[in-house]
């Protein structure tokens, strides 16, 4: 079940005492965790606990009130938008709802990052997009407008767009929510394939089977802090396991 961890425990991303409030609501009260190279870290927690904000902060879309966010040892909190571009080429964020550009076709959406950051020729771009769409079971939808796709298809196009630049770290925000079982398995396989290539990932989800299928370690976010982190076995063996309570729908 849980893939063996690579011994190489180089840290590619780290949260250090991350605190953030929205208005008077203190959402993060000192979140700390580490993401190791090549691992897939599951981030679980109830709705509204601040998981999306954590992912957004890893590419500088949100700034903490205090604390550090390190990507490959570099603190990205003080970086400006221009400095963040290099970070965003390495770290991909898969939006919860796809966030496709609705003024562009599926093809143009997928070509967008390639056009922005590479000098690829149009036929190379076309080739790459064709392969990627086939991989996601979306062949033949190149010229369709995102608005004409189902929610699940939009999500998959969004996922394809995020990884087309071959990032080192991928942040998945509920990539399987709203997908049918067939496509859920396809996404799991895709995440495992990327992991086999050495891509590190944080996987936010409420879908336990997927979490257990792809994650090496799991972190539980509750009440503004990481309450427990470890492999599934480690967490389940803890006395009064928080993971077990969470999975059973009990209060953590």
């Amino acid at each position, binding site marked *: 079940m849980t893939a063996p961890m690579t011994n190489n425990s180089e840290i590619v991303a780290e949260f250090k005492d991350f605190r953030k409030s929205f208005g008077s609501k203190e959402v993060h009260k000192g979140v700390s965790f580490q993401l190791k190279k090549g691992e897939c870290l599951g981030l679980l927690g109830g709705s509204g606990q601040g998981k999306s904000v954590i992912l957004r902060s890893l590419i500088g879309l949100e700034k903490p009130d205090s604390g550090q966010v390190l990507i490959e040892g570099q603190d990205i909190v003080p970086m400006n938008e221009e400095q963040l571009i290099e970070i965003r080429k390495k770290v991909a*964020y898969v*939006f919860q*709802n796809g966030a496709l550009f*609705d003024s562009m076709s599926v093809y143009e959406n997928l070509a967008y990052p390639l056009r922005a950051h590479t000098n690829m020729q149009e036929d190379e771009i076309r080739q790459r997009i064709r392969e990627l769409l086939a991989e996601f079971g979306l062949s033949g939808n190149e010229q369709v407008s995102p608005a004409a796709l189902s929610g699940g298809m939009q999500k998959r196009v969004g996922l394809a767009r995020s990884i087309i630049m071959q990032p080192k770290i991928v942040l998945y925000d509920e990539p399987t929510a709203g997908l049918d079982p067939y496509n859920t398995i396809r996404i799991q396989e895709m995440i495992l394939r990327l992991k086999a290539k050495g891509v590190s990932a944080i996987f936010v989800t409420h879908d336990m089977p997927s979490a257990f299928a792809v994650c090496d370690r799991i972190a539980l976010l509750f009440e503004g802090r990481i309450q427990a982190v470890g492999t599934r076995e480690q967490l389940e063996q803890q006395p009064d396991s928080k993971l077990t309570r969470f999975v059973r729908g009990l209060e953590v």
Partner: protein
Amino acid sequence: MIADFATSIGARMLTVARATGSYGLLFSSVIREFPKRPFYFKLTVEQIYHIGIKSIGIVFVTAFSTGMVMALQFGLGLEKFGGKLYVPKIVSLSIVREIAPVFCSLMLAARVGAGIASELGSMTVTQQIDAIRALGTSPIKRVVIPRILACLIAVPLLAAIGNFIGIAGALIVGVSELGLDPMFFVQKVLTTVVITDFVTGCLKTFFFAFFISVTSCYFGLNVKGGTQGVGNATRAAVVTSSIMILIGDFFLTKAFFLMFEK
């Protein structure tokens, strides 16, 4: 009671101050990113089409009907004093100096401003603006600057066209309703309107174009609270840019007066 009132005024002033601050921030990032590569030439041309070409109709209607109404009002008013012959002079001057630039800009504030604010607003709530950033590109460069440039190019041109259309409207009414000779009308216009009238009128619209584009981008990018927020932002963009045009017009007129006509 009075304390409540004071607090609410204070809170309001704080909101306005904060908004002014982030408006300034948007403005400064536009200035900072403007000279940097990449330049999205194609996106700018697209916007010129959407903002400029597609607005010709509304500018035509606005200028033509105000020109006609002005000729009629002045004609009927001045006829009692035998001043009908002054109609070409008065009407063409007011059209070129004030009416065409201001009315066309106000109509464009409604059409273009609402369009920009609601489009950027929807992009904000559907996280498309975040996606532009997440993919390592800049919404200022891709979205804001092309719209500002397109407005700076299109609005003055449209207002210039509006000048001619407005005078044409006045000419038609002058001839058909007031019985003026068309040649006399045209000749009077040509001897009255000098190049500074035309230039100052168009120069104003550069500023108006700026007010419209920056304001509506600002409100669009700062939408809070879903679809309802988009509606609020659109309304705020149109109202704010119209007010900026009306107030700005006074000061610009004054400034140009001091500069050009000592």
